[in-house]
């Protein structure tokens, strides 16, 4: 888009691009802080979109799906090979498809998986703890959530490697579109085969077990069982939503700790503080930039929006708003009343949020238990990426053995 739509006040147009602007991408959270000022502005990048900058407005948009629809929830419009069910649905349809997943991801269900997750994470850290250095994404931040996903699907953990490589290529090989497409097709074919094999076990899957597909095979939507296509939609959606996000969160967590020996020391000395610290790291490093489509002409955040307008809901803008949080750009490990929006709000609140926070907590605990002090490897540069899920490409760290 080279000029703003006629209904957009030209004084509200800003040069802003959270996808590829090198200055933004070098430090995305500082980039969002710098974009704050006006309550709302308009970017011409990627087809044009409004940017809400206040926690109150972003929360309200999340909470009002009748005005802000999820049927197109990314900037630019994403073309996934499957229906992103229930992410791309609005109420009341959304709730019908979300409900079967809810018991699987409730806090008590997630808590029951803690011993298994701790064993997976501990094994990964054991493999490099004596080395004195590692590239943290390759060693931990990618394999940990991938292995957890594979375990939740009831697959042998050795399958994790296949998923990890395909996922990385599909989401990040921007310079090689054919490879991205092939990786997506490979994942889909794998999941398709998996769903077919589970369906062949009968209507109750692997009876009684609580892996994701078995639970979905027993579920009912509108009084009927889910069909093959719907099961495949769920599997693909969970794959897209649950792996790269946790990888990114772990990357920023350990980058932050590597740069702040004071924070590492405090967490080693006060391990009970870790759950609160996880919330603060989520708040200060909120990685998800989702979007909504305006459903009708409306005055919102003081501007005229028209049906069809795209609106960016950047969870970092909501979670680093000084009007909502004291010292919002500081990291306060024991912050109280930390009602950040790292997992969004409203009916689409990240269903994996309790699993994600458990994975981050376990990763901090298991790494610090074996490596109580670490730092960024000298001479290496950290490369971050922008877009719908902010992240880091490489994180080389080192420690004394």
């Amino acid at each position, binding site marked *: 888009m080279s000029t703003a739509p006629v209904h957009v006040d030209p004084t509200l147009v800003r040069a802003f691009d959270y996808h590829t602007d090198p200055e933004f991408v070098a430090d995305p959270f500082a980039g969002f802080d710098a974009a704050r000022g006006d309550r709302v502005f308009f970017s011409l990048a990627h087809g044009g979109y409004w940017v809400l900058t206040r926690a109150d407005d972003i929360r309200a948009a999340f909470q009002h799906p009748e005005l802000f629809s999820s049927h197109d929830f990314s900037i630019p419009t994403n073309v996934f090979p499957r229906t992103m069910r229930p992410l791309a649905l609005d109420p009341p349809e959304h709730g019908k498809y979300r409900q079967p997943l809810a018991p699987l991801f409730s*806090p008590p269900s997630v808590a029951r998986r803690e011993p298994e997750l701790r064993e997976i994470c501990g094994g990964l850290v054991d493999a490099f703890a004596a080395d004195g250095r590692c590239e943290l994404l390759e060693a931990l931040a990618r394999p940990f959530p991938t292995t957890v996903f594979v375990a939740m699907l009831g697959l042998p953990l050795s399958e994790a490697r296949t998923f990890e490589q395909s996922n990385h290529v599909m989401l990040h090989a921007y310079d090689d579109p054919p490879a991205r497409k092939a990786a997506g097709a490979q994942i889909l074919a794998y999941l398709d085969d998996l769903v077919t094999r589970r369906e062949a076990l009968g209507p109750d899957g692997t009876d009684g077990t609580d892996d994701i597909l078995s639970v979905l095979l027993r579920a009912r939507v509108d009084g009927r069982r889910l069909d093959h296509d719907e099961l495949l939609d769920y599997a693909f959606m969970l794959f897209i939503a649950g792996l790269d996000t946790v990888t990114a969160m772990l990357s920023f967590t350990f980058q932050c700790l590597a740069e702040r020996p004071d924070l590492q020391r405090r967490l080693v000395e006060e391990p009970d503080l870790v759950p609160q610290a996880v919330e603060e790291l989520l708040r200060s490093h909120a990685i998800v930039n989702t979007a909504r489509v305006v459903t009708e002409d409306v005055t919102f955040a003081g501007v005229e929006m028209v049906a069809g307008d795209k609106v960016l809901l950047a969870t970092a803008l909501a979670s680093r708003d000084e009007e909502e949080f004291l010292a919002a750009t500081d990291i306060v490990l024991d912050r109280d009343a*930390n*009602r950040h*929006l790292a*997992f969004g*709000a*409203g009916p689409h609140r990240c*269903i994996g949020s309790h699993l994600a926070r458990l994975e981050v907590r376990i990763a901090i605990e298991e790494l610090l238990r074996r490596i109580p002090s670490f730092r960024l490897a000298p001479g290496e540069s950290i490369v971050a990426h922008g877009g719908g899920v902010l992240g880091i490409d490489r994180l080389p760290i080192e420690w004394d053995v």
Partner: protein
Amino acid sequence: MRVQVDRSRCQGHARCWAEAPDLYLLDDDGYSAVDDVEVPPGLEDAARRGAAACPERAIAIVEAAVP
């Protein structure tokens, strides 16, 4: 002191439950199972922390009237 949870606004963040699991009970899907409860003695601070941690702002604290 009472807590009032607007269950129509609850989206299952469970931050109230993380602060005070014996007060803010959850249903099987992880959403609030309570809407209006008396806070037992000793849980007042945890109740306030739970309300303040709600990302949806769905929880109100109703202080007892001073006799």
